[in-house]
């Protein structure tokens, strides 16, 4: 078992895979075309390897990854549902994959029609009339949302600088607020896991631009007071932003627009099954209400007598958040998904997601409810649920982290750990709708077995994992003396 080598440590000077096309034009002296002072003196030290070496290197690296096609991946808040291969097939069609973003719209009608259709579908799912597909991920959609809110208020001559975010919010929410030049005001959580209404009332004033809410929230709970919350926020003239990361819980059952939200972001790489690629790509389209619409990013897809065009001309727009039309390749996949499932299928997806989550919750509470009680779970949950490892830690002297690491030896990707922050030793579990009952049962039993094992000997879990390509890694050391690139000779 020797250390893995990087591609830069393989190969040999002079090796190569690439064969350059012939120089088929009259060659001119390089200095004549490019003055010496602009020229690079030394070639970048890229790898010198043969094609077979590259293939073996990365194929073997890939085997050091755990992935969704190989096993259960109940990573809370990430909606790791099956990625249909049909989507890869259609996304690879040359008419999409090899389409230049600056192609004349007249010659890109199929792509624009697809974007239009996807916008319409997302509008229907969210209950908000206008959609922009431009944002590249959820947090990018949040950025759009906050900037839109600000533009909306400024257009009314108001400069509101506060944004309310519950303490259950995902880290991207507060981070986005700051990046957009506004100020975060935290709102508490009440005993049944929803927004603390009194705290909200206290903090909701004329300086508040926006409330950012995830509903169901990051505990997998739908806020029972959502109507009251909307009223409180609207009464002070503020906007409601819906973090759609958890939309997989409610498709066809309820819609942000109907709850009073003005802005929603979607994570196509969650709810609409864009494969996550080990950290992207994704897409974070947003849907907005009529009053927000004037400020939407450009360009926008418009339909004019049967044809589709890109419109840049919007006097009140906040402008662009990135180049071109967004992560189109992800639109193709999510559109294929929506067309495969249809209205019924999307609703079925949410219903089975909720069924699976509640079933797994019940099985885990059977197995070990005393050691891993559910947080705020009186009403069950929607698509995910949060357990607290605090009793386990007390009783068995193993932490949520140890449980997670031991699950690796059982062949599972662990749930999300230590998020949301307000739950002690949190374990956030989201099975998704594409898992079978057999898988959920086996997982519950594995957790039970680990806890029984820990009762015998907590060291086993504390030192786990054992069967992985590497074992626990020195993260502190990595941060203290960062080595973030291959040192070169």
């Amino acid at each position, binding site marked *: 078992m020797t250390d893995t080598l990087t591609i830069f440590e393989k190969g040999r000077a002079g090796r190569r895979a690439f064969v350059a096309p012939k120089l088929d034009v009259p060659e001119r002296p390089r200095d004549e075309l490019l003055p010496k002072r602009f020229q690079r003196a030394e070639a970048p030290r890229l790898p010198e390897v043969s094609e077979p070496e590259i293939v073996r290197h990365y194929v073997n690296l890939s085997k050091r990854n755990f992935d969704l096609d190989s096993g259960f991946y109940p990573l809370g808040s990430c909606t790791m549902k099956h990625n249909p291969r049909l989507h890869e097939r259609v996304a690879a069609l040359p008419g999409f994959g090899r389409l230049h973003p600056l192609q004349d719209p007249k010659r890109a*009608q199929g792509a624009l029609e697809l974007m239009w259709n996807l916008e319409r579908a997302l509008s229907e799912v969210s209950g908000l009339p206008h959609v922009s597909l431009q944002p590249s991920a959820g947090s990018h959609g949040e950025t759009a949302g906050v900037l839109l809110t600000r533009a909306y208020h400024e257009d009314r001559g108001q400069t509101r600088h506060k944004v309310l975010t519950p303490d259950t919010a995902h880290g991207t929410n507060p981070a986005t607020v700051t990046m957009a030049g506004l100020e975060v005001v935290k709102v508490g959580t009440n005993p049944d896991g929803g927004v603390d209404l009194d705290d909200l009332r206290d903090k909701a004033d004329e300086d508040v631009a926006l409330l950012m809410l995830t509903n169901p929230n990051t505990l997998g709970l739908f806020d029972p007071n959502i109507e009251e919350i909307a009223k409180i926020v609207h009464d002070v003239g503020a906007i409601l932003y819906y973090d759609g990361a958890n939309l997989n819980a409610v498709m066809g059952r309820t819609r942000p627009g109907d709850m009073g939200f003005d802005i929603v972001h979607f994570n196509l790489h969650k709810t609409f099954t864009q494969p996550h690629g080990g950290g992207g790509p994704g897409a974070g389209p947003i849907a907005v209400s009529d009053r927000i619409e004037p400020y939407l990013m450009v360009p926008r897809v418009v339909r004019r007598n049967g044809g589709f065009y890109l419109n840049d001309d919007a006097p009140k727009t906040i402008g662009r958040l990135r180049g071109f039309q967004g992560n189109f390749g992800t639109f193709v996949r999510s559109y294929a998904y929506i067309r495969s499932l249809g209205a019924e299928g999307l609703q079925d997806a949410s219903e089975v997601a909720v069924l699976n989550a509640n079933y797994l919750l019940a099985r885990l509470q059977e197995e070990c409810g005393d050691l891993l009680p559910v947080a705020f779970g009186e009403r069950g949950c929607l698509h995910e649920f949060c357990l607290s490892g605090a009793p386990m830690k007390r009783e068995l002297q193993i932490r949520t982290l140890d449980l997670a690491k031991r699950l*690796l030896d059982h062949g599972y990707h662990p749930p999300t750990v230590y998020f949301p922050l307000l739950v002690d030793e949190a374990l956030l579990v989201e099975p998704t709708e594409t898992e079978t009952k057999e898988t959920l049962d086996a997982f519950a039993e594995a957790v039970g077995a680990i806890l029984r094992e820990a009762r015998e000997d907590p060291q086993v879990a504390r030192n786990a994992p054992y069967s992985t390509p590497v074992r626990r890694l020195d993260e502190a050391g990595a941060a203290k003396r960062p080595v973030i690139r291959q040192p070169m000779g």
Partner: protein
Amino acid sequence: MSRYTAVTPEDLREMLATIGVGSLDELFDRQIPAGVRLDRALDLPEGLPEQAVYEHLRDLAAKNTSTEDEITFLGAGMYDTYVPAIVDMLMERSELLTPYTPYQPEISQGGLQVMFEYQTAIRELTALPVSNASVYEGPSALAAAGYLAKLANGKRRFVISAGVHPHSRETLRTMARGYRMEVVEVPLRDGVTDPDAWAAAIDAETSAVFVQQPNFLGAVEDVEALMGAAKDSPAVCVAQVDPLTLGILKPPGECGVDVAVGEGQQLGNKLDFGGPSFGFFAATEAYLRRMPGRIAGETRDVDGKRGFVLTLQTREQHIRREKATSNICTAQALNALGGVVHLSWLGRQGIVELGNLLLQRTAYAREQLAALEGVELLHEQPVVREFAVTLDAPVKAVIARCQDQGVNPGHALDGNGLLVALSERRSRADIDRLAEVLGAAVAAERGRVEVTA
């Protein structure tokens, strides 16, 4: 239509019993207040079998003119480079395609090492020591550099060359408006950033300066001189660069650049009508702890075995929340994988050969087009893989005529300008065909113009 789920009626019965509810509705009703329940089915087309979805998407794709359907010289930020087959194969491997961000390093060593190798490759290309593991794409990468500068020096003003891609300038403005940063644009002279206006625009309140190499018109900028002009200011020096030119162009790290950013599409990624691709972001050591996005670092496990982890996470939103250096979470890991695989395939010699090939063919194409009646060079600056001309005819009409002949001559610029880009896929024959078709189109349009005049 139910799809990809597995609940049989029997499963449903057993599961509801275990949960202790009588129906699916109960699960929702105990969570969602009656007032906001949707009391109708979603109004969407009904679900389709796999083959029908395939055919629908295939038909939509067929309505687009792709780079396989015409000889294209469109560039302006994204280019028709050939993606080697091994890149697709690896990007489609389940183990690389379907995992989430590597939150559990013990079972994510593949993805983490790929990030580490990617960071090394970007370092080699840019000659800047610190690279993150990718951001969304080019223009937002440039805006991210602006935010880094804002946090770093808290100054009031950005100075950006008009030679920077319009999408990057617009994105920077959008973000800057948020945190109240002023943006000053410096015009071009003779196709490159006006050095006097540039120097005049920079002062003690300049938070960052931005140039593009080669610039939007394809011209090679004197980046060293431009960055030198900001030397005595607090400004962070930012350059947006074309990665495929870095085999032959002096790298940003040797031109006084603090932060180099750029669009990565050409490195292993398809055009995809604009995305997904990736943005790269590299900087000097000084900014290591101010970088946005993920960074993979090397370390050891408890047995002393080499491994990789996400590191310096105290910069990030999930730890620092409102104090994070960026809000980015999901980025473009898979696309960055395509990048490092493509770069390994090109290799140390290939990246230089490719740069030379582009340089020579671009020079040839520029010469051929300049020789045409009614076509003039927009500038005489050195170019590497893209150049601009002015047409003595309405550019949009000329482009349309060329496309009817199966040639896409490039991107229309104001004032009947045309931006012509080369990729290694455009042979001399393609260039000659372009000259022929463009010449004819310009002639025809000038004819029309005279007539109507």
